[in-house]
């Protein structure tokens, strides 16, 4: 028998068993076959003891209520044992115990073992299957389980260590179902659990299901799977003789439709016969049956075979279609999801491209040099601006070293730049902002301010440097020019200071040179006027007086020029020593008294009580007062000149007022400027250098005071100056 035929036969048998309509006929047939088999017992050969594992898996193998091993496998084995003169000894236990015993060699045969390649490593199998049976899911009546998808989230009980369980696990996994598998030691327990609600469904072969489902209050679901061939298994290392005998005998049994094999199947897959048949009725039945069978069996069996096969195929087709539909649906869902992912990815890619283009635009359009280079100095990126700026097209510069292209070996002032790339790569932080000289392709030198940033890999190693450069040539040149200008300015200042020193020295010398002859003029004039050299007549005396006045005026001029030049050169130093200001005022008044009297002016002096000793420069204080009083007398033709002195807030305040010509408003501002004599007409009416008031102002300020003037043209002027009672350190 070929494997295919075997398989078909197995299907056929299993399907037959699934069709309750045929029960009656087969029940009868089985009885006939049983009787027939009893009649044809062969002669006994030598006796051999065969140990057989037995467990509860009705109707394939089980222990009957009377304690006898029963079932299809037992029937088949006993038929073979009878022919081969084996003595069978049954070793009861659970399925798992039976397998263990077989593995240890404690038993010779284990019935009802499905073949797998994995099991063949542990056990030996014969070749002709005893049975091929579908596995099926059983559930409580009305469970609503209609397809395998309904099992999602359910607890499924299954016999431990079975191919059935493993196949089911793979099957449900392939559908992506979440199922809790509860391994059980035997099918009886399994059905009890399902019935009690401890499991939602149970797996078993159709043979067991047919026999016990209804009794347990369960029903078969449409979920069938894994039609598997079942064999006797022997220990792996046992002789094959036993298995070969089984194969031979089984082939014989299967070829003969009247054999004990078919009888057994019919017997155990039918509902149990509960009634006893009288012997005579048996014999009558036999006769009738044989007659009936001979006439009907052929056509009936054939017809039934066709029907069963048709149903079988229909069911298989339905299952296939259902499975395909489910698979299609799953695939469609996955496809839709995949499509969505592809679209999402495309969108991201598009966004990335857009973003890349945007940044490329920025980098290429930037008004700066943007470049990247390796720590060895090799240029890997050079933007458009850089290409234009340095005069290298991209294809010419990329891959070349910055040294010798854009970095000169030496800059203009001779600094060595050959190690610049290495230095930046070694210590990028130190060169984060760096200005250095660069060189264009046409050898022009340019200055660039660079921002250098290292690009590091995961280990922190510098793989590239990003350098952004701004042309600073103009600024560097401007700085250079500025430095030159500053140097020129410093030189000019030095020259000016030199000239100033020379001017001061010149003035000092001039002053001396002018005074020396004046010394003689004034001196001899004085001697002559005194009459020391002999008596003078009136005319001589008058003329000598004129010489003396002119000489003294010349001396005043020289003194004023000397003072103002000393002040402007910052060389005039004032002292700070105690002196009696009241005495000084009176002394100066006495000095100018003759001048006032000569012009017929009244000279009024008012000195308040607290005015006395102050700390200041006596000579300069007297010079200020003398100057103001001389001016007042000089510019007053009639009326009076007055001096008022008082103390207020730590300052002594001296006012010199007159009833003279006064000062016009527009002249008041120019009053204290040097070389500025207020003019009263086209001709100068009054002698003077125009330096007196500006000297007074500087002196007052040097002494820590202030000077001011008020005037009403035609009515007179009042000058007022203050001096601190105690001059500060300055």
């Amino acid at each position, binding site marked *: 028998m070929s494997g295919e035929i075997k398989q078909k036969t197995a299907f056929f048998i299993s399907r037959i068993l699934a069709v309750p309509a045929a029960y009656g006929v087969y029940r009868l047939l089985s009885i006939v076959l049983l009787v027939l088999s009893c009649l044809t017992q062969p002669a006994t050969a030598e006796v051999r003891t065969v140990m057989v594992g037995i467990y509860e898996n009705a109707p394939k193998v089980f222990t009957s209520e009377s304690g006898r091993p029963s079932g299809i496998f037992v029937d088949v084995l006993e038929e073979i044992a009878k022919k081969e003169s084996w003595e069978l000894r049954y070793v009861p236990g659970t399925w798992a115990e039976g397998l263990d015993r077989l593995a240890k060699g404690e038993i010779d045969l284990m019935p009802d073992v499905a073949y797998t390649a994995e099991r063949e490593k542990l056990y030996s199998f014969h070749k002709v299957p005893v049975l091929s049976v579908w596995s099926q899911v059983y559930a409580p009546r009305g469970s609503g389980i209609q397809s395998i998808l309904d099992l999602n989230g359910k607890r499924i009980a299954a016999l431990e260590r079975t191919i059935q369980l493993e196949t089911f696990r793979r099957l449900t996994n392939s559908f992506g179902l979440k199922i809790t598998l509860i391994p059980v030691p035997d099918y009886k327990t399994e059905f009890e659990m399902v019935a009690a609600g401890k499991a939602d469904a149970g797996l078993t072969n159709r043979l067991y299901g047919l026999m016990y489902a209804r009794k347990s209050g369960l029903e078969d679901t449409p979920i069938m799977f894994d039609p598997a061939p079942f064999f006797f298994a022997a220990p792996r290392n046992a002789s094959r003789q036993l298995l070969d005998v089984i194969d031979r005998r089984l082939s014989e049994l299967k070829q003969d439709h009247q054999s004990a094999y078919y009888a057994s199947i019919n017997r155990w897959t039918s509902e149990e016969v509960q009634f006893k048949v009288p012997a005579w009725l048996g014999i009558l039945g036999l006769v009738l049956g044989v007659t009936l069978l001979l006439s009907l069996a052929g056509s009936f069996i054939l017809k039934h075979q066709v029907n069963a096969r048709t149903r079988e195929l229909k069911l298989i087709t339905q299952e296939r279609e259902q499975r395909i539909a489910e698979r299609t649906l799953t695939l469609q869902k996955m496809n839709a999801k995949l499509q969505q992912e592809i679209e999402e990815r495309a969108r991201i890619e598009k966004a990335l491209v857009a973003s890349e283009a945007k940044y490329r635009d920025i980098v290429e359009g930037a008004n700066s040099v943007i470049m990247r280079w390796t720590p060895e100095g090799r240029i890997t990126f050079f933007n458009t601006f850089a290409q234009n700026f340095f005069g290298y097209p991209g294809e010419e510069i990329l891959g070349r070293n910055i040294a010798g292209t854009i970095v000169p070996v030496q800059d203009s002032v001779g600094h060595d730049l050959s190690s610049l790339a290495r230095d930046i790569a070694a210590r990028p932080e130190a060169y984060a902002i760096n200005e250095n000289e660069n060189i264009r392709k046409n050898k022009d030198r340019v200055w660039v301010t660079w921002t250098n940033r290292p690009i590091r890999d995961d280990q922190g190693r510098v793989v590239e440097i990003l350098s952004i450069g701004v042309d600073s040539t103009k600024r560097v040149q401007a700085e250079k020019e500025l430095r030159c200008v500053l140097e020129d300015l410093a030189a000019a200042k030095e020259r000016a200071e030199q000239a100033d020193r020379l001017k*001061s020295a010149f003035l*000092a010398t001039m*002053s*001396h040179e002018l*005074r*020396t*002859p*004046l*010394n*003689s*003029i*004034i*001196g*001899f004039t*004085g*001697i002559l006027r*005194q009459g*020391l*050299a002999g008596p003078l007549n009136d005319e001589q005396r008058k003329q000598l007086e004129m010489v003396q006045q002119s000489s003294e005026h010349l*001396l005043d001029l020289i*003194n004023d020029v*000397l003072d103002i030049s*000393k002040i402007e050169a910052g*060389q*005039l*130093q004032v002292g700070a020593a105690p002196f009696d200001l009241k005495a000084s005022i009176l002394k100066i008044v006495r000095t100018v008294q003759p001048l006032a009297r000569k012009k017929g002016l009244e000279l009024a002096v008012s000195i308040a009580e607290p005015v006395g000793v102050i700390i200041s420069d006596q000579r300069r204080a007297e010079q200020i007062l003398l100057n103001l009083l001389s001016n007042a007398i000089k510019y007053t033709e009639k009326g009076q000149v007055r001096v008022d002195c008082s103390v207020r807030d730590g300052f002594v305040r001296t006012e010199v007022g007159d009833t003279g010509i006064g000062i016009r408003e527009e002249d008041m501002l120019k009053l204290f400027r040097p070389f500025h004599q207020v003019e009263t007409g086209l001709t100068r009416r009054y002698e003077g250098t125009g330096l007196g008031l500006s000297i007074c102002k500087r002196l007052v300020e040097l002494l820590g005071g202030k000077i001011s003037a008020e005037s009403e043209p035609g009515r007179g002027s009042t000058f007022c100056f203050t001096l601190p009672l105690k001059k500060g350190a300055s």
Partner: protein
Amino acid sequence: MKKKILYIEDNEQNLYLVTYILQKSGYEVVGARDGQEGIAAASRMRPALILLDIQLPVMDGYTVARKLREAGQVAGVPIVALTSYAMAGDREKALEAGCTGYIEKPINPETFLAQMEQHLNERPSPGGTAT
């Protein structure tokens, strides 16, 4: 006996003017035209007072005053600087160099004698040569 005044001055007119004023007032005046001559005259004649012009040829008045003081022969003799220098520090420089007084040029013939006699009388040295 007439008091002896040494006047070191290179300007002929000034030398004559001062000499004339002092001789009229009863002093004996010895004139010297430069520092070297003045130092030599000072050690020879032992004057009651020395009038010293500051701007002199070859050796300026400050140096002459310093040398006179260093020589020690005119210890206690007043040296009065007689100069038209009026820049800052002139007075101090003269005093530092060893002068005891300072009369600014141009001199006033009416007050000059009084100014000079004040320095003559204020002469601090106990070992003075006035007799």
